[in-house]
Structure formats: C-alpha cells, structure tokens
C-alpha cells in the first residue's frame, strides 16, 4: 500500500567471498526465514489477483457465458461508458471527502487523546477503538435505522415541526457512515506519531512566545504529518473499496465501484466485466495513493527522515 520499496532479500551485508559456506548460509537465511510468509502471501493474495486479472481479459457472451478467448472489450467499455466513469468519480469523491473529514476529526481527536491523563486516556482510547469490534454490517444497519424515515432523527425533526427529511440512500449518508467506520484507522497512526513526539518541543514553542494554536500548527502538525499521511492512505484505500457501507446505505441508486463489481458478478453473471472493473479500481487506487504519498512524503523526507 505504501511506496516504500522493500529491500531485496539478497541485500544482506556482503561477507568475505573466499569464506564460502558461512557466507552462503548468511545470504540464504533471510530468504528461508521469510519464505513461509511469502508463500502464504502469494497463495492467498497474489494468486486470486492474478486470476482476476486473467479473467478480465476473457470474452463474454450473454447467451453462452464466459468463453476462453482474449479481449480488451471489457476495459474499453468501462473506460468509455459514462455510466462507469460516473461511478468511479463518485467513489473517489466519496472516499476523498471521507478521508478529509477523518483528518479533520481524527487528528484533533488523537491530539486530545494524547494529552489526557491516564485513567481517562485508556477509557477514551477504548471508546475510539471499540467500533472495530462491531461488524461493519451491523453498524451500517445502525445508521440506516437512525437515519431512516421512521428513525429517531426524523421523529425528532417531525416533533420540532421541521418535517421528515430523506437522509438515507444519498452520498452524504455513505460519507457519514464511512467516516464512522474509518475513524479509528486515522486516529491510531496519528496517535502513534504523537507518542513519538518529544513533549518538550511543544513547550519550547510556547517558551518562545507562541500561542497554543501557533505551536500546534507550526510545530506539532508538521511532525505528525507522516501519521496523518498513513492514516489518509488507509482510510482512502478502505473507503474506495468499501462494499458493505455503500451497499447497505447507498441503496440501489447510489452505486460505488465495489457494488458494481458485485452486481456484475452476481446479477449480470458477467464475471470478466466485474473482474475488469475490479482491476481498474485497484489500479486507480494505487495511482492515486502513490501520487499522494510521493507528494506529501517527498516534501518532508529530508526534514523528518
């Protein structure tokens, strides 16, 4: 997910070449040790991905189903059809908004959390992380009950004389629910980088006459930027490929890419088309995230190391 190029396993420290056997053992040790995890990764992640990619080039006929031949037709139709383009745009718009809101809420939340005294800090950290223990589906249904036409919010609005407001099945609902689900993934990395911060640095800023707000903006925020960056990447990536939230709260009308893939596979039974959409989502996601990573991280690499 990140752009960090992993060091090649062969890049172990070079030992004396004449000293053959131990050197060989040293060189192969990292390979052997990482082999189980690498095999598991290959079997469970790369194989399905590869098969999906292959599938996306298969020919498809609505009468006879999937045939073996090679075609770029699915990609062409996705990339040229405004229906699909709109869904892609909506997906990235919704994800970007959810990410931005997560930054706006999650970063101060993590900061306040890091400033709390001990009994409360543990309690609130638990509160922040507790939603992760509840299934996304359950939480999505929770939102649909809360925001539904007969839900407590509408009941309150009716009681206040405002009248019923349609809240479900819109982008707003999906964004709100995504923010709710994704917030811990923003809070945790930011919290981690705040833990690494020397509290004296903020004190130093104050001692030179900076207001608390200035100290946070000029001194604290730039230092936790790597945490905000990784949080944003996680939230954006998970949001762009989210299925349950848009599926349950977006309804039939508001489609996102993941729900389209689902429809292609299970309603249209057009597996190659679904695979092509999935591959395109993965590619677009990667490009957006790598670009973002490069822009933000590159800007701060020399300073923060």
């Amino acid at each position: 997910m990140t752009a960090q190029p992993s060091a090649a396993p062969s890049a172990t420290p070079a030992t004396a070449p004449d000293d053959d056997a131990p050197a060989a053992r040293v060189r192969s040790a990292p390979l052997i040790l990482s082999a189980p995890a690498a095999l598991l990764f290959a079997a469970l992640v790369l194989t399905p991905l590869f098969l999906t990619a292959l599938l996306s080039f298969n020919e498809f006929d609505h009468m006879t189903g999937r045939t073996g031949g090679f075609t770029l037709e699915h990609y062409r139709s996705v990339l040229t059809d405004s229906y699909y383009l709109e869904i892609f745009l909506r997906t990235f718009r919704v994800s970007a908004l959810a990410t931005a809101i997560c930054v706006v809420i999650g970063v101060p939340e993590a900061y306040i959390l890091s400033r709390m005294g001990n009994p409360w800090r543990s309690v609130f950290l638990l509160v922040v992380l507790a939603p992760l223990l509840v299934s996304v589906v359950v939480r999505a249904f929770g939102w649909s009950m809360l925001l539904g036409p007969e839900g407590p919010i509408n009941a309150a609005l009716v009681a206040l004389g405002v009248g019923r407001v349609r809240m479900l099945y819109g982008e707003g609902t999906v964004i709100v629910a995504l923010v709710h689900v994704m917030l811990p993934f923003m809070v945790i990395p930011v919290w981690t980088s705040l833990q690494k911060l020397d509290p004296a640095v903020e004190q130093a800023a104050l001692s030179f006459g900076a207001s608390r707000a200035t100290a946070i903006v000029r001194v604290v925020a730039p230092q936790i930027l790597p945490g905000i960056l990784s949080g944003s990447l996680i939230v954006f990536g998970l949001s762009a490929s989210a299925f349950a939230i848009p599926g349950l709260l977006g309804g039939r009308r508001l489609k996102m890419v993941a729900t389209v893939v689902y429809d292609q596979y299970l309603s249209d039974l057009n597996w190659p088309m679904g695979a092509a959409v999935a591959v395109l989502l993965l590619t677009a996601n990667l490009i957006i995230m790598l670009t973002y990573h490069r822009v933000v991280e590159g800007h701060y690499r020399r300073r923060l190391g």
Partner: protein
Amino acid sequence: MSFLELKNITKRYGPMTAVGDISLSVEKGEFVSLLGPSGCGKTTTLQMIAGFVEPSAGTIRLDGRDITRAKANSRGLGIVFQSYALFPHMTVFDNVSFGLEMQRVPKGERKPRVEEALALVHLSPYAGRYPRELSGGQRQRVALARALVIRPPVLLLDEPLSNLDAKLREAMQFELRDIQRKVGTTTVMVTHDQSEAFSISDRVVVMEAGRITQIDQPYRIYEHPQTEFISRFVGKTNLLPGTVTAATAGGASVSLAGIRVDVETAGLSAGETVTLCIRPEKLRLTAPTQGLLTGRVADRYFLGSQWLYHIDGPLGTLMAVTPNDGSTPVETGAPVGLDWSPAVVRIHRGTLAEAPDPALEVAG
C-alpha cells in the same frame, strides 16, 4: 532587590511534595546552578520558573514583576531543554528565527540577529541544515542560540550537557560560561553533575528531597558542606564517626575509635557524638609511623593526574588522593602513615544514618 526571586515556592502533586517551601534570589547577570540527585525537585523548580508547572504556593518575581501565574508564552524566558527540543522540521536558521518571529520582530531585523546568534555559538556554516543532520554538540549549540536570540531576561538550562559525551561536555562547559559572560544573561541551570555546576556557576544551590540545603559559592560548598548529605553528594569524602572528649581552646578534641584527633570547630561539648568529614585529597601519605594513623594500601587506582588509594586502617577503609607528581606510587599492601591538619576536618553533629563503606562512596 534581586532580579529573579523565588519566595516560599511549593509544589505538591497530591499528597507528595515535589518542592517544599524554597526561596532563592538570583542577581542580574548571575549564573546559578540547581544541583541535586534525581528526584530532588530541581527540574520542577526550573519548570515553575519557566511557567510549565504552576506552583502550589509562593511567588516568583522577575525584575520586580510577579510572574507566578503568568503563562509560559508570556514570560519571554530563554530555555534550553535537556532533549534540546529543536523543531525537527525546520532548518537551523528557522529554529533560531522562530522566537523572533513569535515576538513579531520585523523580518529585516531577524536575519542579522539570527546570524549574530549563530556566530556566537560558531554555527554560522550550518544555518541551512536540519537538526537531524547535526551532531549532538551542534544541536546543543542550536538550542542555546535559539534561546539567546530572543534576548531573554533569564536563561534557563535544563541539564544542558547531559546528552553529550565526556570530552565534549567539558569543552561545552567552558564555552557555555564564556558565552554567558559575553552576553551577560542571568542564568539558572539545573544539573546533577557537580563538576558541571562547580566549574561554571557563580553560586550553587544544593537541593535534597524538595528542599534547598545550601546556597553558596562552589568552593565553599565543597570545602564547607553544611550537611552530611552534601559532603557525601559533592565529591568524595571520608566520614568518620567519633565522640567529643573535650572542648579545647582552638576547637575540640575528638576520639575516633580510641584515636585522639584535634579539630578546629568551636562550640562542641564533651560527650557529643559527631561525624568527621575529610576529603581524600586532604589526607597526606607519610612514612608508616609518622602520621596520625597507620594503615596498609588495600588498593590503588591510577586516575591520570592523580592516584586514588584505599587504605585499610584502624578506622576502616579510607580514601586518599595524591597528585601524580611523577614519583613512584606506594605499592599495594605496603604500610603507610596518614596525616592531616586539623584545619581540613569538617564536623557534622550527630551520628551517621548508616555506617557507609568509604570505598563505595562514589558520589558525583
């Protein structure tokens, strides 16, 4: 009226008293060190002066103004933190310039002042670097330049040299003092390192368990420690329990396990229990039968400029330090006499809390 004045300052954390009722006056331009073991309240005291910790009671006055409740960012003090606390995402120049910017110094004036501060700490060529590209000593200088550039009324140094290696620490001690003299800023330094405190301070404040036990010039603290704690904490010392046998014209006569020695302390009365305190370098090695005591060299350690002897004798193991004047040192196991003049003996009234093994007294 003194420049910086702490009056009856107390800090309590729940039932625990970190700093108990301390008063301290610092004159303008003075360099004062707070010296004590960790947990003695010296850092808390500094933080109260800085404004990061609010005193539970007492007042702090700066130049006649009560700053006890003033916010840290309104006090305008220059602080050098133990961790240096440089802004890692800013260049050296920007780090130093930050304080000026916060004080709304016009941009045109900032640059020469930053350059002047960097020149003072010999870092002019490093203005464009980031803190992580500097060595520990260089970071330390940036922290100092950053604190001095705002021309603070008081400079606060929190263990400024503790993160440097021994050689650099010594060099920085002198440089720090040199810079402080040049700038003339009133300075309060916290340290647990007595040689650091002694070599660069005008006055040293010894703290123990949240209280001030002695405020004096470094030389006087070393030579005239007012409590047994100070004589143990500051430098090495031989502590010998004894009983006063008689008050004499010039002082008193004390019996140390049957050996009679004279001291010059007045006001002692016969029968009183006292502790004699003799610095190792005040003991003279003599021929075996000529001194006040005779002992045997149990161990000797070469310290470069000095020899440290552990000498077993009738009073237990004593430490003696002699300068390395190039002559042959006394062999281990050889009998040796120990002599001292009554003038170098300091007396603490009362018994020792526990009889310490002088060989383990390695304070400082």
